[in-house]
């Protein structure tokens, strides 16, 4: 019985040697690695899997730029069916390409059906999605770009803004939405259409520019310029044509 116990210990120890240790990053490839020492980058080829404490990444090919030595990663570029999961940052993404710049903590995913999902916000685009984890800047550009969180739904060709961490939740504090056809924003019970939509959290005002439509409680108001105060949920709409009456509706809810 003692022999069985000893052998079991040896086996467990052998498996422990093979397994990745805490703090280590393990990268596997099916078709090798090419290291360019003077240019300071290496290419990981075919079915690349990167496993670290903070994230896992799967892609067809990956290029890694380094500074002093191979471990000193400055930038990572992944290509082909990229799948990135980071439980530490509550981040999940799928895309055709992914670029991560370590020093600026800037993450960009490109390609059709790109998605980047955090615990508070979902972002989708057929163009690209870019998020800067340090300063909270984000940008989505391309067809079918969408940003969704608990209280807001945005669809436009170009969405950019700033996230801030408020009470451990990512909230949008600044927003610029542009679409040469029409942008769409749904906030609580109000639907808004305009070519350009801006939001500034310091003033709590959503500004709507060109081809403005606001729909609320079955009411539809059309104009050329509008503002919606998110604090008291009231809005104003103006028209470029001075003969038209400006509409101001106060919500009594």
């Amino acid at each position, binding site marked *: *019985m003692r*022999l*069985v116990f000893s*052998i*079991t210990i040896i*086996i467990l120890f*052998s498996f422990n040697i093979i397994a*990745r240790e805490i*703090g*280590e*990053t*393990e*990268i*596997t*490839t*099916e*078709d*090798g*690695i*090419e*290291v*360019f*020492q*003077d240019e300071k980058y290496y290419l*990981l080829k075919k079915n690349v899997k990167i496993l670290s404490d903070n994230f896992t990444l799967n892609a067809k090919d990956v290029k890694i730029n380094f500074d*002093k*030595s*191979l*471990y000193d*990663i400055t930038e990572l570029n992944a290509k082909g069916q990229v799948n990135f999961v980071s439980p530490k940052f509550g981040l999940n993404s799928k895309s055709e390409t992914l670029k991560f710049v370590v020093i600026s903590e800037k993450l960009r995913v490109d390609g059709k059906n790109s998605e980047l999902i955090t615990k508070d916000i979902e972002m989708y685009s057929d163009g690209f999605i870019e998020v800067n984890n340090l300063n909270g800047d984000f940008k989505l550009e391309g067809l079918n770009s969408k940003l969704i969180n608990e209280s807001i739904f945005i669809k436009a060709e170009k969405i950019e803004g700033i996230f801030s961490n408020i009470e451990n939740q990512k909230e949008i504090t600044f927003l610029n939405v542009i679409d040469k056809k029409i942008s769409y924003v749904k906030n609580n019970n109000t639907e808004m259409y305009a070519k350009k939509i801006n939001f500034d959290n310091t003033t709590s005002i959503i500004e709507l520019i060109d081809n403005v439509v606001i729909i609320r409680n079955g009411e539809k108001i059309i104009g050329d310029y509008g503002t919606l105060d998110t604090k008291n949920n009231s809005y104003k709409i103006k028209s470029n044509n001075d003969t038209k009456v400006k509409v101001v509706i106060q919500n009594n809810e």
Partner: protein
Amino acid sequence: MNFFLHINKKIIFFFGLIIVFSFLIIIFSKQININNIDLNISQKILSNVDIAEPKFAISNDSRKIHITAKEGNFLNKDEILLNKNVKFKSNDFSIETEKVIFDRNKQTAESKTKSLFTSKNTTISSDGFNIYDNGNKIMFYGNSLIVLK
């Protein structure tokens, strides 16, 4: 009487032993596979050693890679087959493998045997490698594993 008291202890012991040995066989067979890798080019049987403990270097403006081995055999005017305990060492890294073909003229070295690259906080194990462009570029072949610390 409890059902479990009917089970023969010897059967449990031998059953456990079989499972344990199965695991050991799997682990050791993988290890044996790793050690039994053939270099295609080296299939020519070399009866005598041309150079004992050969030493070479690949160098460019920015780095020098020293190459050592236990045995060396000339394949032609430029190519030398380095055998047994072949080591590449520079200021930045080292590579260990069993068989390498070193080209003195082109300043290249190619191996198709299991190789282990080591540099600061980094190890790369691969199915061989090719050092070219005067040591600036290294290509690791096949299924490769990088561990970064």
